[in-house]
Structure formats: structure tokens, C-alpha cells
């Protein structure tokens, strides 16, 4: 009994310290960058499917690659995929106007040799800046969803 009384708060404090430590440390990496061992065109298609499987709608794929190769870059395969959830796109601008400049969400796709890199904000920096529980929940959901999308793309390629 005595042991449990002393131990439980101590254990909880230690657990809390550990959680805050790991969260702080992990948050140093504020960009999510994933390498896919597959060329750019195929990866782009797999990514669009993975985004849809996560319940999002891909609205547009924007080229940001006008003439990069001509300017001496090794590739000009560099595009931005815009996506979002209809309900959020309709609701968030009213409820959380600060999020408007971040909508729709985006994932950057670019080639590196025969591999493709997928890039996204991991939204932790935004959660920290706003320090608002409702916004933090949204940012964490986006982060988790993007991670699931990236995992799905990786798994699809490995199959």
C-alpha cells in the first residue's frame, strides 16, 4: 500500500518527464521527408491514391518545374499536390480563420535520380506556435494523416 502510494506519483512524474522529453526532442524535426524507391511518375500516382484512401480529395497537381532542367538542374520533376477534406475546407475558414493560408494542404513531390522524395510540413511547429487546444488537435490529425499517407505509399511500392 505504502509502496503503491509513493511509487505511483513517482512513476507518473517520470512518465510525464519522459513524454515531454521525447516530444520536445522529436519536434526538432519539423519537416517530414520520405524517400520512395520508385521513379517520380509512378510515385505521384501512388501518392494520389494514398491521399484518397485517407479520406482526402486531391484537387490539383501544380507543376513548379518550368524549365528547371534547361537551367542546369538535374531534373525538372518537381510538383505540388493539393488536397483536403471537403468538410474541413467548408468549416475551418469560419471556425479557425488563421488556418486559411494553409488550406488546401499540400505535399511536395520531387525526383532524385530513380527515387522520389515526398515532403510535408509535420504541423508540430504550427501546433506549438498557436498553443491552442482546438488547433493543436487539427494539426495533430493532419500530421498523423500525412504520416499514414507516406507509410501507405512506401508499403505500396514495397509490394
Amino acid at each position, binding site marked *: 500500500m505504502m509502496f503503491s502510494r509513493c511509487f505511483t506519483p513517482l512513476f507518473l512524474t517520470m512518465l510525464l518527464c519522459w513524454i515531454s522529453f521525447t516530444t520536445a526532442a522529436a519536434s526538432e524535426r519539423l519537416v517530414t521527408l520520405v524517400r520512395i524507391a520508385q521513379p517520380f511518375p509512378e510515385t505521384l500516382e501512388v501518392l494520389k491514391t494514398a491521399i484518397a484512401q485517407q479520406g482526402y480529395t486531391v484537387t490539383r497537381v501544380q507543376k513548379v518545374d518550368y524549365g528547371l532542367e534547361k537551367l542546369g538542374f538535374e531534373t525538372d520533376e518537381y510538383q505540388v499536390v493539393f488536397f483536403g477534406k471537403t468538410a474541413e475546407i467548408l468549416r475551418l475558414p469560419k471556425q479557425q480563420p488563421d488556418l486559411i493560408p494553409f488550406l488546401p494542404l499540400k505535399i511536395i513531390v520531387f525526383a*532524385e535520380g530513380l527515387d522520389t522524395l515526398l515532403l510535408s510540413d509535420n504541423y508540430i511547429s504550427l501546433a506549438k506556435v498557436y498553443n491552442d487546444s482546438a488547433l493543436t488537435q487539427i494539426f495533430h490529425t493532419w500530421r498523423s494523416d500525412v504520416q499514414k499517407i507516406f507509410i501507405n505509399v512506401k508499403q505500396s511500392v514495397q509490394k
Partner: protein
Amino acid sequence: MLKNIRHAVIILSKMLKIPRRLHPTFSLPLLVLLLAVLVTCADNSGQTVAQGKMLFDEHCSACHGSQGQGGIGLPLNVPEFINNVDDFYLKASIQRGRPGRIMPSFDDLNTNEVNAIVSYMRSWTGKPGKSYPATTISADIGSGKKTYTRYCADCHGIHGEGGKGTGVSQSRPRKLPVLAPALNNEGFQKSASDSLIKELSRNSHKRSPIETLKDTVLQETDYDNLVTYIRTFKPTKNPHTPSQTAGPPIIVRESSYDLETTINNLKEAIVGENFRLIRIQTLDEGFVKQGSENRSQTIIYSCAFNFLYDALKVDPRIGLFLPCRVTVVEDKGKVKVMAIDPKRLSNIFNNRQLDEFCTQMHDRYVSLIEDSI
């Protein structure tokens, strides 16, 4: 083979201080014990390398390539590099990262995980790393400065600030196989021993793509002087001052015009600032039925291509802020013009060179927005 096993059993018996007369009694159990130890070690080593590969794939491969061949990050699997650095350097580099030079600190990985990554990296060449004494080299700073300025400063920068851009990524082909590391970086200075810096200096000039350097003959004292001078480099200050890290990560201004006029003003400002107008759309386009979009939330996409090319050369991750996106919103009779604040968010890249571009982007956004309101 049998001879070797017998020999191993004898050594083990000696280690365990088993009297020689008892060898026959203990030889079989010892043999079993020996085999078990060997199998466990081999298995653990295999497991460690496998775990290291998994962790490398998860945390490192995006930048350094799946086999350490390089990408946004430096190539790590080059034998001249990996075989010449000690484990301490690799582990400390993983844990400390390179502040302001893209590589983040992986201080959330525990010691076993870092060890596993290093074991995996060692498996590329199958050789253990060298070990270096922790002795401090103290020689002539003035002579070291002369040697550095003559042979190293062209690539590593006059203050050891390193080459510009990223590793060997999609950006322009460069004359050097790798980006010259920043020798003044806190992460490098704290990860590398004096002896390691000396060895790397000796090796790097032999492998240098600059022909004149390959034939350069430096004496031991020259390298000692060089290391002593490199140790005087001060790290570049963190550019994320409190003023930059405080406040909202968006730029918002209220317009004195109505929605349509503000949008038209913004379009004119974009063209006036030499941006190319890419697209005008409602925020909900593609999410709702065509014809039922909400026109009071309009996004204008634009791009300044010369700026884009220069930024991509520095770091391809700048794409997170591309193309430039300004949203004009009308709510309850008020018109607001909004964009993300690249300067405020630039710390996500851990790249001091990119911070300059983000500050320029911030200024251009503010200019565009203020011209429209």
C-alpha cells in the same frame, strides 16, 4: 577446425581459471558455452545491423540515400570517409546534428538505436572505423591560418562556414562531388576530435577534385597548425532571434477596398513585382460542385521564377512554401488578405542559407499585400 575449437576451449578455461586437470570434465560444457556465445554474438550483431538499417531507412535515408549514397545530405558510404571516421564522430553527429545546416539533431534516439545505425553504416564497407586519441593538438594558429586560407578556404569558406546549397540532390551539378562541410559548425566541432580533423584534412586534400591540391605536400606540423586554426572558428549565430520566432506564422492585412477591387489590386501588384500569375481560384474549388463555389474566399497563386530557381539551388525543401499563395477573404463585410509568413516558419528547415530566402519571401509577400489594400 577441431584444433581451433580445442584452442578456444583452452583459452576459455584459462579465462575462467579452470585447473588443467579438470579440462576433460569441462571441455564439453565449455564447448557448448563457447558455441552459444558465438552464435548469440553473431545473431546480436546481425540483429543490430538489421535494426540499424530499419532506423537508417526511417530517419536518415530521405536525405542521405537508402545506401548512404547521398542526396540532400552528404554521401556517407564513401570508403575514404566511412573507414576514416571513428564511431564517436558518427554517433555524436547523429545526436547533435548540424545546427543551421539542414541535418537535425536526433537526440530522441537512445544510445542503442544510435549504435545500431552506426553498426549498419559500418556494414557498407565491412570495416571497423579507425580510433583516434582524444589528445588536444596545440600548434601555431598563424601558420594554420595561412595554410587554411591557401588550401581550404575556397571550398570551406573563409570562416569555415562551408559550401552553399545541399549535398548532391536534384539541384545543379556542381564541380565538387560533395558540398564542403561547415567546419565552424557547433555539431562538427563537438563531434570531431583534433586527431580526426587532422586525418580528414590529410585525406580530403588527396581526394580533392582541385588538381593543384592533390599534389600538395604538407608536413605534419602544417596539419597540426591547420587543426589548431580550425579550432578557433566560431559557430554562426542562430538566426532565429526572439523577434523572428514570436508572433503568428501568417501575414494578415485588412483591406480598405471591397473583395473584387482587392483581388484586382493584388493581381496588378503581382504583375508589378515581376511575379507570374499562375492561377486564381476559390478556396473550395474542387471540393464543391462547379458553379457553387464560395467566391468570398479566393486564392491567387503566383511565382517569381528567378527567385524560385535560386532558392531551389539552396534547398529543394523550399517547395513547402511554393508556389506563392495569397488568399483574399470577405467575412462580415471585412476584406482580409492573408498568406503564410515564410520568415516566421523558416526555422522548420534548419538551414541558415534558406532563412535569407524566407526573409526575402516575407518582404515580397508584405509588399504585394500592402499594395493591394
